[in-house]
C-alpha cells in the first residue's frame, strides 16, 4: 500500500515540477516540494497504520479547559 501512495506522490511531482523548473519558479518549487513531502510522510504513516492524533480531540481537551474556566467565573 505504501508503494502505491509513494507512486502517487511521485506522479504528481512529475506532473508539476517540470513546468516550474522551466519557468524558473524556484520558490514555488520549493514550497511545492515541501508540502508534497509533508503529505507523503503523513500519508505513509497513515497507510502503515500509525495512529495520528485526532484533530478534534486536541481541541476538545483545550476547549473543555476554557469552558470550565468561563463557567466557573460567571
Amino acid at each position, binding site marked *: 500500500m505504501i508503494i502505491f501512495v509513494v507512486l502517487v506522490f511521485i506522479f504528481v511531482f512529475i506532473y508539476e515540477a517540470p513546468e516550474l523548473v522551466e519557468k524558473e519558479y524556484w520558490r514555488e518549487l520549493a514550497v511545492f516540494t515541501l508540502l508534497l513531502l509533508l503529505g507523503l510522510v503523513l500519508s505513509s504513516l497513515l497507510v502503515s497504520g500509525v495512529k495520528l492524533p485526532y484533530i478534534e480531540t486536541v481541541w476538545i481537551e483545550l476547549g*473543555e479547559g476554557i469552558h470550565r474556566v468561563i463557567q466557573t467565573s460567571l
Partner: protein
Amino acid sequence: MDQGKISPWQLTLLVMSFTIGNWIVLPAGTEAWQNLWLIMILALGEGLVFAYLSLLLFRRFPGKTLFEIFALVFGSVGGKFLSLLFLWFFLQTGAAALMIFVTLLKTTIFTATPDMALLVPWMLIVIYGCRRGIEVIARSNEPLIIATIVLLFISVLLVLNILDPANLLPLFNLPLSDALWISVGIAVFPFGQNVLFLMILPRVNRRQKVTGAVLKGMIGAGGYLLLIQFLTVGVVGKVGEIYVFPSYEFYRMIDIARVLTRLELIPLLNFMTMGFIKIMLCLYALAVGTAQVFNLRTYRPLVFPLGALLLIAAFRFAPSISQHLRFVEEVNPYFGLFYSVFLPLLTLGVALVRGWLRRRVTS
C-alpha cells in the same frame, strides 16, 4: 496569482452554497430543536454583524486579500503569524466538512465502503476544480445552488400532507442563556465561517457591490437553512432530537399517495454538491493563502499537496460522530468567535489606530 474575476451575483451564490455547506447535513444547535429556527433568526443577525465588521476591513483595504491586509497592518512577521493561524482555520473547516459528508454517505448508503474509497475520489474532484481557479468554481456553483433552492421549494410542497404544526410547539421553553449560547454557536457555524471569503473578495469585478453581495448571500442561506429546520421539526417531530442527520430523516418520511416515497436520495445528492463547493473554497483559500505567505507567484501547484493534507486531516478529524457533535456544541463557538470576530476586529482596530497615529504624525 489567479486572475479570474467573478461577478457580485456569483459571489452571492458562492456565499450561499458555502454557508449551506455541511450545516444542512449536520446542524449545530439541535438541542434546541423546535426553538432552533427562532434562534437562527437571532444567529443570522449576529452573523451579519460579524460579517459587516470583516467587510469593513475589506473596504479599508480594497483589493487586498486577508493575508495581504495582515501584512499591511501587523508588519511582515506579525502578518505571517496571523496568516498561519488562518491557514489552520481553512484546513480545519474544509476537513470538518469533508468528514461530515463522508460520514453521511457511510451511514446511509455505503456502509461497507472504507473511508478512503470515498475520500479520495471526492478530493480528486475538489483538487481538479480548485486548480481551475475561482472563476470555474463560481460558474460550476451557479446551477448547483439553483438546483438546491428549487429542491427546497419542491420540498415544501411535498411535505404539506405530513407536516404537523403541533410539532413546532412548545416554543420558548429554553432558558434564555442557553438560547443565546446556541445562537452564538450558529452565528459562528455556519455564518461566521464566511470570513474565509476575505481571501476571495479581491477577485470580484465590481468592488462596491461586494458588501451587499456577501450579506445577501448570508441572508439567503440563512433563510434556506431556517426553512429546512422548520420543515424538519414540523414533519419529524420530537423524534428528530435523537437523529444524527435530521434533514436526511425528514426526506425519508415523504410519502405522497404511496408512490412518491424513498425520495431521500435526491436531497442527498444535492447536499453533496453544496459540500463540494464548500470544500473547494476551503482548499482554494488554503492554496492561495499559502502562496501569499511564501510570496509565491502562483498557487496552482500547491493545490494537490494541500488537498492531500486536507484529506488526511479529514480522515483523522474525529474518532466518532458523537465526539464531533460534542465539539460543535462546546468548543466550536470559541473557536469560531476567535477567527470570525476577534481577529478581524483586532485587525480593524489596529489598522484604525495606526491610521489615526499616522495622521497625527503628519499633521
